[in-house]
């Protein structure tokens, strides 16, 4: 459908702007507008014509002074022929163009009182377009006076319908006007319009009119004819002049005295919206085929009118919905020119930017609020390359100077021909979110700073501790050296004196010198233990894993411990499993641990039994050697058990005096056992005896845990 805008009033009256086949057509003061109106009262993008689905409509682009159609301010309005669009002082008429314009009547516009109306000639243009039968009448007998009469009367009807209904908002009134025009034109006595529920704005409509004084309420029309027309979509023209036709006629037709009937469907887009019915009670054969054509043309016009109104309603509803959404959505919406000049802004955007209302943003440049206008280059590059920007974060300055961050999605709106229309953007205020992000980041940074500081502190503390530990180890090593040298002399000379005393058989002197020797040796073992423990803690004790025959080692241990077993009149029971075989461990320390456990057992047991048991065991996916030393000695209380493996801790301080020992043996034994990948466990009952169990891996431990374990809390000593 071709259509155009004609300048009726304004800069160049008579100038025509053909509308493109489809798409959008911009009117305004902007240089980009298709119809450029140089008028200060006109906004840059004032309004646009949208062509969609054969329906043209005009939308106000939220212009400052508004767009008027036929004198009424509109937001969106469907366009019909002759509609007058007013922007400021400029008035344009909308016209669709016939494909073959046989009849082209120039439109003249006359100013009538308060509004704009069209002359009859304008209507003619329209009929040529719709062209149903009228041209036939014209061609058939242009010079016959009754025919011309008929044509005039038909034209009058159309004129009335178009002109009178155009400003009528009530659908029922429109139908009444149309029906009256039809009755008038066709000289019918009675008429009816029946509209289905789908087409009626407030449900189905049934209108009956009579030309004479008969009250329409008493009217009855033939339901048969109406139904036939409505359901089958056929036009009906009939007279009840022959007896056969009368016989066929229904009771109602006879009762009403109907002589001739015409009934045509009112259609739009191949849907039957209703029927238009006229009859004559005065004359048989009242209506000719030409009359039917006229009635059909009126029905067609009615169909178009109804359809237009239906679309108007729909467009209006959609427009209202859109307006509602635009005004209430908490997202800022805008349209702008290429330069950033705002063509439209919604309330949310106005609120975002601190303006009292969206009108305040008319013709404001959005770019002026960008804190960093240089960012626009990036924005433009993005939108130019892909037609949109997504999630673009930019800082804006509000009217009150406050800064906000927004996240923007924007699009280029283009006409069908690719021409630029405007930018359309959605802005989300993310100031709060960014503030929270920032706060979160600050907290995180602060936390990291704290962690860093704390880590540094700990590193320093660790360094200090390690340094202290090194100092301690060095001190112990040196001390032990300094202690050993005089001890060397003490023990050496004691042994010399002891030998002399023994040779001289001076019994009392032997006992005295033995005391010196025993004390010296105890001091020596104490020094040795302290040194071992400090080596363990300094991580300097190296284990030497080797394969050795366990049974052989145990036999040797049993031999060595013999004198100690006898000392307290104890009995030693040895229970060795037959399959002990070869073991991979530090043999010297394994032996030392075992001797330590056995000597403890012997020391704390009087006239009892000390049992040494050894066996292989599988557990935790590995093979273990379990060395168990049980005694029937004095045992320990739970409290004593709890302190058992602490260095320098015997069950109680008096124990040391009574039983001797440095209090370090168990601690050392356990640490070394742990370094070999095993451990020592203990069970004891006070007064009944104690069982120690040392477990060590039979095949060595993959990595011999050294400093990590050894540097632990000063663990484990002996009883």
């Amino acid at each position, binding site marked *: 459908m071709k259509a155009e805008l004609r300048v009726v009033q304004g800069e160049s009256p008579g100038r025509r702007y053909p509308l493109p086949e489809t798409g959008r057509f911009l009117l305004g003061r902007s240089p980009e507008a298709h119809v450029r109106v140089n008028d200060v009262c006109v906004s840059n993008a004032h309004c646009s014509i949208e062509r969609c689905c054969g329906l043209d409509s005009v939308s106000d682009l939220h212009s400052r002074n508004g767009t008027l159609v036929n004198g009424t301010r509109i937001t969106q309005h469907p366009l019909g022929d002759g509609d007058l669009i007013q922007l400021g002082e400029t008035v344009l008429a909308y016209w669709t163009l016939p494909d073959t314009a046989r009849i082209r009547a120039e439109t003249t516009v006359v100013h009538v009182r308060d509004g704009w109306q069209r002359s009859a000639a304008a209507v003619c243009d329209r009929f040529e377009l719709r062209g149903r039968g009228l041209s036939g009448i014209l061609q058939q007998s242009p010079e016959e006076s009754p025919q011309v009469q008929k044509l005039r009367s038909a034209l009058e009807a159309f004129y009335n319908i178009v002109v009178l209904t155009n400003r009528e908002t009530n659908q029922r009134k429109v139908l009444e006007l149309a029906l009256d025009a039809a009755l008038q034109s066709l000289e019918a006595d009675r008429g009816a319009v029946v509209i289905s529920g789908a087409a009626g704005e407030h449900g189905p409509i049934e209108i009956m009119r009579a030309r004479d004084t008969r009250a329409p309420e008493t009217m009855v029309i033939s339901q048969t004819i109406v139904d036939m027309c409505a359901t089958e979509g056929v036009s009906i023209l009939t007279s009840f002049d022959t007896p056969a036709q009368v016989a066929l006629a229904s009771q109602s037709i006879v009762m009403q005295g109907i002589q001739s009937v015409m009934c045509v469907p009112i259609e739009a887009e191949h849907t039957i919206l209703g029927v238009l019915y006229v009859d004559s009670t005065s004359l048989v054969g009242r209506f000719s085929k030409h009359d039917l054509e006229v009635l059909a043309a009126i029905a067609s016009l009615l169909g178009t009118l109804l359809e237009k109104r239906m679309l108007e309603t729909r467009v209006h509803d959609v427009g209202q919905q859109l307006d509602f959404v635009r005004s209430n959505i908490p997202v800022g919406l805008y349209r702008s020119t290429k330069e950033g000049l705002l063509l439209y802004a919604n309330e949310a955007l106005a609120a975002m930017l601190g303006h009292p209302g969206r009108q305040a943003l008319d013709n404001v440049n959005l770019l002026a609020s960008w804190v960093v206008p240089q960012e626009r280059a990036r924005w433009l590059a993005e939108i130019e390359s892909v037609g949109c920007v997504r999630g673009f974060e930019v800082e804006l300055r509000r009217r009150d100077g406050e800064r906000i961050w927004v996240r923007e999605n924007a699009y280029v709106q283009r006409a069908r021909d690719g021409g630029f229309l405007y930018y359309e953007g959605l802005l989300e205020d993310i100031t709060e979110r960014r503030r929270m992000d920032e706060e979160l980041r600050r907290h995180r940074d602060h936390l990291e700073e704290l962690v860093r500081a704390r880590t540094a502190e700990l590193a320093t503390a660790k360094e200090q501790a390690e340094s202290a530990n090194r100092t301690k180890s060095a001190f112990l090593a040196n001390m032990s050296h300094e202690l050993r*040298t005089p001890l060397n002399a003490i*023990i050496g000379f004691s042994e010399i004196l002891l030998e002399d005393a023994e040779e001289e058989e001076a019994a009392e002197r032997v006992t005295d010198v033995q005391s010196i020797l025993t004390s010296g040796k105890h001091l020596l073992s104490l020094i040795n233990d302290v*040194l071992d423990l400090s080596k363990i803690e300094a991580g300097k004790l190296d284990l030497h894993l080797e394969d050795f025959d366990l049974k052989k080692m145990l036999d040797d241990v049993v031999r060595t411990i013999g004198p100690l077993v006898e000392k307290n009149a104890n009995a030693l029971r040895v229970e060795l499993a037959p399959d002990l075989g070869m073991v991979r461990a530090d043999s010297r320390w394994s032996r030392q641990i075992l001797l330590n456990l*056995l000597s403890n057992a012997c020391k704390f047991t009087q006239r009892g039994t000390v049992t040494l048991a050894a066996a292989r065991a599988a557990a935790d996916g590995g093979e273990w050697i379990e060395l168990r030393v049980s005694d029937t000695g004095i045992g320990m209380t739970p409290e004593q058990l709890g302190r058992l493996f602490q260095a320098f801790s015997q069950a109680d301080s008096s124990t040391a005096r009574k039983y001797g*020992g440095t209090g*370090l043996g168990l601690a050392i034994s356990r640490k070394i056992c742990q370094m070999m990948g095993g451990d020592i466990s203990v069970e004891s009952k006070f007064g009944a005896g104690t069982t120690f169990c040392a477990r060590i891996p039979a095949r060595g431990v993959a990595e011999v845990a050294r400093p990590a374990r050894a540097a632990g809390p000063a663990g484990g000593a002996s009883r």
Partner: protein
Amino acid sequence: MAKILVIEDNEMNRRMVTRRLTKRGYQVITAVDGLAGIEATRTDRPDLILMDLSLPGIDGWETTRRLKANGESRGIPVIALTAHAMAGDRESAVAAGADDYETKPIDLPRLLAKMAALLPRAGKAVPAAAAGGESAAGESAAEA
């Protein structure tokens, strides 16, 4: 009679070792530091040297190295003695050329056993008093 050179700076220990070894039939000569030790080795030709490692002046390790570097004294067995018992002392002594190692305080029977093992290599007999009676390597049960 096997001649033993004791290089030891501590007078008490020097006297103690001298007495105990003499009592077991050894001839003992002494030196108070490394240089004196090297001199004594050259002049008195000992059969075995007991070398204290922590000596003033040149220490025991260096003295050992020098003795072992000299063709004349290379064949004389050296037993390093030290009050140091930290890990690596034995290795460092052996690395310096010592033939064996013993910690102080001296466990006399064990030291005698080590001397007895080395002396035949120097072509010297072990005194009867030292070879007899004493059991070798008498490790006692650890005190707890």
